[in-house]
């Protein structure tokens, strides 16, 4: 009996030690491990301590193509700033954390940016769910400035959180009347079942009905659905003129192919998709998305009419040749804008205090950027910018309409 209990105590001691050992090993692995990679400063012998900028974006996982475009853009802009002598005489050190298209991984990695690396600014997040997951870690608990670069629904009004991509209002309010004029009045709104498509459809329905159109089909699908024959049949039999799509990949490609096979384009139907850019064009064969329209803050075709856009695009293509493209739908243009606006704000503030930088960022303006100039709307933490309507022709977007000036985000 006595032996047994002694044996039991011994066994439990060993297992506790083993537990602690494993726990230490695990947390060590997590803390240093594969979840994020960090760019080391090349100027370790520089006189002034660098300003640390954290990029939290999806380098791996389902939307890695967008996250890597964001990271590349940040590298390009930061290199530019450093080559020009940095900000306030200090170089910028870029720390890139992988949010891995997974909110739970993201929160841990972003927390490390804030707590261990003590960054002065975080830029990033692509989906709205990602922004919602990491904003509290950055802004509230981390007391750090946060810039969100992606186009989105436009209802984010958290203090110290600045949005530099277009809002739904900037995308839709001129685009939907254009679609009615250049497509027709009968709309279908097929959508993946999550927050962004629902917000798009709510907003779009209002504009469609106010402009004399009507919504014939509004449907939501599981995010990973790839079979859309029933939907396409409903669109065809109901004689829909315009399909305003918010089905996201992997469903988007098969859905457009189905529409094409059913003859939607051939009978004069207009396809529109609010996130489609140059990076999405290779999801389908060119003929399958011929005539697809979208309204964004930048298309590659803008380079033929705006010198600054041409310069930025050429620089990106030179520094990052390959398949990860500089395109508006990925948030890369918002990333460029965000970093440049922040640079000006820090210069104006003269220090890195969050209050001072946020106050300066609130009215920051850049005269050059992808798509043209941009400026923050004071008190709104959102950005005024040019908006372009483009149509896919032979696998390329061509500009068919442009806003008369900077478009107001109508947010907050």
């Amino acid at each position, binding site marked *: 009996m006595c032996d047994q209990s002694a044996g039991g105590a011994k066994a439990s001691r060993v297992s506790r030690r083993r537990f602690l050992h494993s726990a230490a090993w695990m947390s060590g692995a997590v803390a240093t491990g594969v979840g994020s990679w960090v760019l080391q400063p090349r100027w370790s012998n520089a006189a002034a301590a660098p300003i640390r900028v954290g990029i939290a974006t999806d380098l791996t996982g389902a939307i890695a193509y967008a996250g890597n475009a964001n990271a590349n853009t940040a590298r390009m802009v930061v290199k530019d700033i450093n080559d020009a002598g940095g900000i306030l005489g200090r170089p910028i050190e870029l720390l890139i954390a992988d949010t891995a298209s997974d909110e739970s991984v993201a929160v841990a990695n972003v927390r490390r940016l804030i707590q261990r690396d003590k960054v002065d600014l975080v830029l990033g997040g692509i989906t709205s769910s990602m922004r919602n997951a990491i904003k509290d870690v950055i802004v509230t608990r981390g007391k750090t400035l946060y810039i969100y670069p992606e186009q989105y629904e436009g209802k984010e009004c958290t203090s110290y959180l600045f949005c530099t991509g277009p809002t739904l209002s900037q995308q839709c309010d001129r685009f939907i009347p254009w679609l009615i004029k250049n497509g027709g009045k009968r709309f279908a709104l097929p959508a993946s079942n999550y927050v962004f498509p629902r917000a798009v459809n709510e907003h779009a329905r209002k504009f469609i009905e106010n402009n004399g159109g009507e919504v014939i089909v509004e449907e939501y699908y599981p995010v990973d659905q790839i079979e859309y024959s029933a939907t396409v049949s409903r669109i065809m039999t109901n004689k829909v003129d315009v399909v305003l799509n918010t089905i996201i990949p*992997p469903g988007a*490609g098969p859905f457009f192919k189905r529409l094409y096979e059913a003859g939607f384009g051939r009978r004069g139907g207009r396809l529109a998709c609010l996130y489609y850019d140059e990076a999405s064009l290779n999801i389908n064969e060119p003929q399958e998305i011929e005539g697809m329209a979208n309204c964004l803050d930048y298309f590659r075709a803008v380079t033929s009419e705006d010198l600054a856009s041409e310069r930025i695009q050429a620089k990106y293509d030179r520094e990052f040749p390959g398949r990860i493209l500089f395109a508006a739908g990925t948030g890369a243009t918002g990333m460029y804008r965000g970093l440049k606006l922040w640079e000006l704000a820090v210069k104006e503030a003269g220090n890195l205090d969050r209050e001072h930088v946020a106050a300066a960022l609130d009215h920051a303006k850049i005269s050059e950027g992808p798509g043209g100039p941009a400026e923050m709307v004071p008190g709104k933490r959102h950005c005024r910018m040019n908006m372009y309507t483009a149509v896919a022709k032979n696998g390329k977007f061509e500009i068919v309409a442009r806003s008369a000036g900077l478009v107001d985000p109508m947010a907050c």
Partner: protein
Amino acid sequence: MESALNATFEVLSFGAVLVLVVLGLGIIAGMMGIFNFAHGDFVLLGAYTTYLVYSVGLPVWLGMFAAPLVVAAIGFVLERVVIRRFYAIPVIAMVATYALGLIIREGVRGLIGGLYLSVPEPIVGSFTVAGAQFSRWRLAIIVITTAMMIAGYFLLTRTSFGLRVRAALDNPSLARASGISTSALYAATFTFGAGLAGLAGALVVPLFSLFADFGIHFLILGFLAIMVGGIGTFQGSVAGAATVGVLSAALPWAVAPVVADALVFVIAILFIKFKPKGLIA
């Protein structure tokens, strides 16, 4: 009428796609008692091989021809190197296949840069019957699947190889005692199953475009199909795949798509509850 014709064709073509995927999965599960979690990623490998051949400028059909051979070869190597070590402990074997699947998937994701890539059909265009439009390539998939089904059936029932496979399926110990090398048979079966998955991936990639999570969609439906059809028979796999394929393609015509997605599983689970050995046991 036009819509009913359309619906029938769409349901058939999706059913055919699923049958192709499930044939390989079913034959491996039936013979070796292993649910191959890497099967979806074999489908992905087939799709990727097709893309690779197409992207170097060769015709797509050549890629589709190469895909089953390449994936079968990879399947053979994996069976010899990894899977065969775990036949005695099927649960571990499943974890091993899951790990292999993950490695393949993330490897391909790295290779294609996480993008969604288009692969064109070798036979483009559509034809019209009674006012309804049908894709030629979807018809081709139905034809190829039917041919594969018939070939598979004859292979299993009319050849001496088929006889040995059925013997090993029915009673592995007795088969071994009768001088049949089950080890070689298992390797052949796994290779054949992988090849079928590769073919499935190659044929359907023009419909869905290539992306890293391509195979997972088919894997879950495939497992469901095997449960419904019954483990261990060729006919069971086909019947299960047809049932699940038709259900998941037909339900969105009748109810809201978000509901349909879950309803397929609910119906299948109810079905298994009342017919636990499957349609054909």
